[in-house]
C-alpha cells in the first residue's frame, strides 16, 4: 500500500521560534491519525501547515491524488492547492461557525462544494444534500433551516456533511469534539467512526483528549514543544508509553 500523504522533516517558524519542527510520518488510505499534546505543543500549527493553511518553512509534504499523481504541497501553485482542497481534502474546524456559512441554509452549506465542482442541477443538489443530512443524523426536513437554528452538536455534524459530500480522501480535523457536551460527543464519535469505515477516508485529527484518540485513531503522534516525541499504534502509546512526556500525559488522565 502506498501512503496518501508523506511528511518529511516539516517545520514551521514563527519568527525565531519553531511552532513545529522535524515532523515526519506517512499516512495510509483509511487510516485515522490523532495528534495529541497539551496546548502550545504545536499540534494545531502542524495540522494547519499540512493542510496548507500555513506555509511551511522546511521539509517536504507529498500528497498522492486519486489518480496516483504526486503533488509536492509546499511548492504547489495556489490554484492547484485550491483545486485539491475542494476535491480531495476536507477541513473540519473546532468551532462549527468557522467552518460553516451561517447566513445560508443547511442545504446550501452541504451543496457548496458540489457546486464548486460544477454540479448545477438544483433537484440533484437538493437530493444529495438531503441524503447527507440524514447520514449525519439530521432530518432532511431541516434542509432550508440556517445553521444558526441548530444546536452545537448538529452544527458539527453539518460541518462533517459539508466536508464529506464530495467524497474527499483526506480530512483534517481540529479538535472536532472540543466544543461538544460529553453526551453529544459520544454520538458524534460513533458517527465519525462509521463514516470513516464506510467512506475509507484518511483522517488527521488534533485532539487533547486521549480518550477520543483511543476510540477513533489507529495511530497517534504525541507532540511536545513543537516536536513529535512519540509515534505509533494508539493503544500501544496509551498502554505502554515510552517517552517521559507520554508517560506523564497518560498517567494524568482522570478515571471516570
Amino acid at each position, binding site marked *: 500500500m502506498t501512503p496518501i500523504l508523506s511528511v518529511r522533516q516539516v517545520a514551521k517558524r514563527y519568527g525565531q521560534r519553531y511552532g513545529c519542527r522535524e515532523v515526519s510520518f506517512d499516512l495510509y488510505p483509511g487510516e485515522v491519525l490523532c495528534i495529541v499534546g497539551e496546548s502550545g505543543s504545536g499540534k494545531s500549527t502542524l495540522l494547519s501547515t499540512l493542510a496548507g493553511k500555513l506555509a511551511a518553512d522546511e521539509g517536504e509534504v507529498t500528497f498522492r491524488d486519486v489518480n496516483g499523481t504526486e503533488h509536492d504541497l509546499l511548492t504547489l501553485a495556489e490554484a492547484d492547492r485550491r483545486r485539491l482542497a475542494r476535491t480531495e481534502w476536507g477541513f473540519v474546524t473546532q468551532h462549527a461557525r468557522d467552518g460553516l456559512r451561517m447566513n445560508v441554509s443547511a442545504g446550501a452549506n452541504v451543496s457548496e462544494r458540489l457546486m464548486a465542482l460544477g454540479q448545477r442541477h438544483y433537484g440533484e443538489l437538493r437530493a444529495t444534500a438531503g441524503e447527507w443530512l440524514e447520514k449525519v443524523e439530521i432530518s432532511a426536513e431541516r434542509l432550508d433551516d440556517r445553521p444558526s437554528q441548530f444546536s452545537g452538536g448538529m452544527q458539527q455534524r453539518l460541518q462533517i456533511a459539508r466536508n464529506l459530500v464530495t467524497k474527499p480522501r483526506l480530512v483534517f480535523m481540529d479538535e472536532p469534539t472540543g466544543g461538544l457536551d460529553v453526551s453529544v460527543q459520544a454520538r458524534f464519535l460513533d458517527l465519525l467512526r462509521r463514516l470513516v469505515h464506510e467512506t475509507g477516508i484518511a483522517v488527521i485529527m488534533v485532539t487533547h483528549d486521549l480518550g477520543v484518540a483511543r476510540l477513533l485513531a*489507529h495511530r497517534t503522534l504525541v507532540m511536545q514543544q513543537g516536536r513529535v516525541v512519540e509515534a505509533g499504534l494508539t493503544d500501544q502509546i496509551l498502554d*505502554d508509553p515510552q517517552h517521559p512526556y507520554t508517560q506523564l500525559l497518560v*498517567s494524568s488522565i482522570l478515571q471516570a
Partner: protein
Amino acid sequence: MTTLLIDAQNVSKTFVLHQQDGLALPVLDDVSLQVAAGECVALVGPSGAGKSTFLKALYANYLVQAGTIGIFHRGAWVNMATALPHQIVEVRRHTLGYVSQFLRVIPRVSALDIVAEPLVEWGESQEAARVVAGEWLARLNISERLWSLPPATFSGGEQQRVNIARGMIAPRPILLLDEPTASLDAANRAVVIALMQEAKARGAALVGIFHDEATRDTIADRLFTVPLARRLDTAKELTA
C-alpha cells in the same frame, strides 16, 4: 504435520518508568513460544511473572526491545515487533483477536452493534452482522431486552460476555484470551469453554491466561511457564 500460526522468538521486554527516576523493570527475558493451528496454550507462572505482558506483546499492544513476534497472516509471516501501525491494524482485523477483561467502546452504542462491528469491518452488511451478533449474545445468555442498550450500565459479567462475543464473532485464526472466564458463573463459563473448543476445532490457535484451573485443564493442550526475568529483586519490589 502441524501448521504454525505463532512463532515468537527471544522476546525481551523491560519497562522504564521515567516518573520513578527511570527505574528499569525487566519483565520478559528471552521468551520463545510457538503455537500451532488447533492448539490451545495456557500461560502460567506466578503473579508478576509477565503472563499478561507476554500476551500483550503478542498483540503488539506492548513494545518489545528484542526478539521477533511472528504471526502467520494471510499466507505470510508478519513480525509484529517491527510491523508498521497500519500493518498491525490489518493483522488484528483479519487474523489476531484479543479478548480482554475490560470492555472499551464508544459510549451510547448498543451492545448489538458493538458485537457486530468486527463482522462489519470484514465487509458484512450491518443487518447481516446484527443477526449473527444476536445469535452470539443469545448464546452467551444476554437477555434480548438488553441488546439495544449500551453496555455501560451492564453488570461486570454481562460486560465481559459482550466483550467475548465481540472478540470471537469474527472467526480469526488466532485468539489471545486474558482471563476470559474471570467473572462468570458456572453456566456461562461452560458456554465460553464450548466457544473456545469450537474455535480450536475450526483450526484456530489459542493463547490464554486462565486463572481458573478447571477451565485451564479443560481447554489447554499444554502449559507454558513464562520464565521470570533475571533481575527479580527489582521486579519483586514493584509487584509486592
